[in-house]
């Protein structure tokens, strides 16, 4: 189903589509397993277009737009398999802007001159985002972080937004990559970029205070990350489906176009239905929530559904292509790999369902 958009929103989507049109599978391929998995100049271009400050209020020089606009841009990023982490940068900018006085890094993050990414996860499964093991203590007027963050998209990052437990519960802190006591070790992913473990040993940090409308800065950023990743997963699903439908319309076997076979038509319909469900869920959530106070049960629901369905859809796309879909040469595998990575970040479908049970009071 089409989205009901204002003319400004349509314009934004079209300009994002144009920007992402210059990316796509070929570019993505070129960045696989490189030292740096994206082009800094393109991140700055995204900054020039205002997208990294899309949620940042006008008073802090951002675009001051909402979640629908964020989702529209990130849906395009997913479609184009964009390598520049504009979603992570944009939600980090939103966090840096939320206090009474914006964090000094904000302007450069919005410009794309530096990259700040969230570092919220600690374990492969079962994290309670509001009860991190990483500790924050005050030493001589400075906040110091000690602990370990995992699965951080640290490629090209200049700083991190780290969740940590303090005396009064979870807080969000900014840590510079170059800070003392801050060590990164990276692992290569099949998707092409690296994930890092961030070790913090008394690393000096700045407090990132919560937005007046949010319960907690960690909660707000976590929920925002879940929605942002879901929008990107949605884009990847949509494009993978289109690529697959195109193939079904040209490939012949038994003297007929394979798209005329009912077994394949129904398989294609199933993944179309999944994609439509995720689209409605992402955009209805975006339209009915404010960036700094997304309903946590809804955020968990969206990420659970997007993670599960993006994998199911891109898996089916490989199957519908047959042997060619299993080759590295064909692009369809790139969408599956993007789905594997994004589905796993900030808690996969199973982890989100577990959180959802608790938050939504399903068993109470």
């Amino acid at each position, binding site marked *: *189903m089409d*989205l009901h958009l204002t003319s400004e929103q349509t314009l934004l989507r079209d300009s994002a589509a144009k920007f992402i049109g210059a990316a796509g599978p070929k570019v993505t391929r070129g960045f696989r397993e490189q030292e740096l998995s994206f082009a800094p100049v393109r991140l700055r271009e995204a900054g020039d277009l205002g997208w990294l400050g899309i949620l940042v209020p006008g008073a802090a020089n951002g675009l001051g737009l909402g979640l629908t606009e964020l989702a529209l841009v990130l849906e395009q990023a997913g479609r184009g398999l964009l390598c520049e982490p504009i979603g992570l940068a944009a939600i980090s900018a939103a966090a840096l802007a939320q206090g009474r006085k914006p964090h000094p890094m904000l302007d450069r993050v919005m410009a794309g001159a530096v990259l700040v990414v969230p570092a919220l996860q600690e374990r492969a499964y079962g994290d309670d985002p509001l009860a991190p093991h990483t500790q924050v203590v005050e030493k001589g007027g400075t906040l110091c972080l000690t602990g370990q963050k995992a699965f951080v998209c640290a490629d090209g990052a200049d700083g991190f937004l780290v969740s940590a437990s303090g005396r009064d519960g979870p807080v969000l802190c900014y840590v510079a990559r170059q800070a003392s006591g801050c060590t990164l070790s990276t692992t290569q992913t099949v998707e092409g970029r690296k994930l890092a473990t961030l070790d913090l040993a008394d690393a000096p940090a700045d407090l990132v205070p919560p937005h007046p409308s949010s319960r907690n800065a960690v909660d707000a950023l976590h929920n925002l990350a879940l929605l942002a990743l879901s929008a990107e997963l949605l884009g990847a699903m949509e494009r993978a489906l289109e690529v697959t*439908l195109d193939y079904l*319309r040209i490939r012949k076997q038994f003297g007929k176009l394979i798209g005329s076979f009912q077994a394949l038509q129904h398989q294609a319909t199933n993944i179309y239905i999944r994609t439509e469900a995720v689209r409605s869920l992402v955009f*209805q959530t975006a339209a009915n929530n404010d960036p700094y106070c997304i309903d946590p049960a809804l955020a968990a629901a969206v990420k659970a559904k997007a993670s599960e369905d993006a994998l199911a859809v891109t898996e089916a796309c490989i199957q519908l292509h047959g042997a060619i879909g299993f080759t590295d040469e064909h692009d369809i595998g790139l969408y599956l790999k993007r789905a594997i990575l994004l589905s796993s970040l900030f808690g996969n479908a199973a982890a989100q369902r577990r959180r959802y049970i608790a938050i*939504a009071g399903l068993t109470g």
Partner: protein
Amino acid sequence: MFRSDTTAEGEFRTKVRTWLEANLPFGLRGRTVRPLPAELMPWYHTLSRKGWIAPHWPKQYGGMSATLNEQIIMTEELARVGAPHLPVQGLNHIGPILMEFATAAQKALHLPPILAGTVIWAQGYSEPGAGSDLASLSTRATLEGDHFVVKGQKIWTTWAHHSDWMFALVRTDPQAQPRHAGISFLLIDLHSPGIRIRPIKTIAGDDEFAEVFFDDVIVPAENLVGKLHDGWRIANALLGHERLATSNPQTAMMALERIKTMARASGIITDPAFQDRLAAASINVTALSAMFSHAVQLTNNEHSLGPEASVIKIFSTELLQTLNELLIEAAGGHASAKNPVTTNFGEVDVAASFLQSRRVTIYGGSSEIQRNVLARRVLNLPN
């Protein structure tokens, strides 16, 4: 969840809720099987007298001219209070069709009794040889002067044995190619000589279905709706709207509540494997709400849905079945009980609800037919 009432809508909701609480007889609340006409129709008449029987009908025909949001509010409040399903063939199907395609005389004759609930309508589409392949229907209507002679059989006709009139698709041109070009839309008085009706008991134990036999039944020519041989277009005109209306997430939300009640009572609620599946189903109910709100928003803004409405039909009906499978699992040893299960948390209808849910992926175009429609008309896959 994805839509909040405006002030005026909130007031409307309160008004509806208060009135329903005060006026719906307790014996009619929470029934999973539709009561028989003698018990049900007085409630229809009460709603009719209140002026609330046809929210979606225009005022000129005696309806409420309610906005789509007001219609949804009424559906939600009716579901909330556990109101029984009314016979809707008149209100939702033939009524709107007559408004769009019928003559002034036909409207004057048929619309008021639908509103008043003095006449019950049945839909005569399926035949023994024409189910999913509806265009192959063979019930013959031959025009002889001022009347048609109808011969043939209809089946799976909901409530035919309680109905007074049938709107039927009949074959008026046996040679037509494509076959749907030889079909007409006819109104048949079910009390006419030559009609025999036999109820059919379903797996759910009710006899909601019937088969109807026509043996040279005389039907006046003025009972034809629209032009001769133009019945297919008329029958299809309102399908998109019907699919949206039947995909309201309220039914799924109520099913979810039944599962939670049953799961608490049986103790399976503490089983992590069950919890995971309950979470997945609950998340899909949220997704259905999102799809429904999305579709309503488009309809409110005059984007007509067309064949993509099949997406919501498939999603909502398959989800309802998943939910009922969970209900059976939650019930454990109570799964097969014929009557509602009494628990410390209230009565839960288990087997009857589960069995009822098996029909939803079949009627109104089976899930497989809907997938064919999507594949060809939305995904543009080749024939």
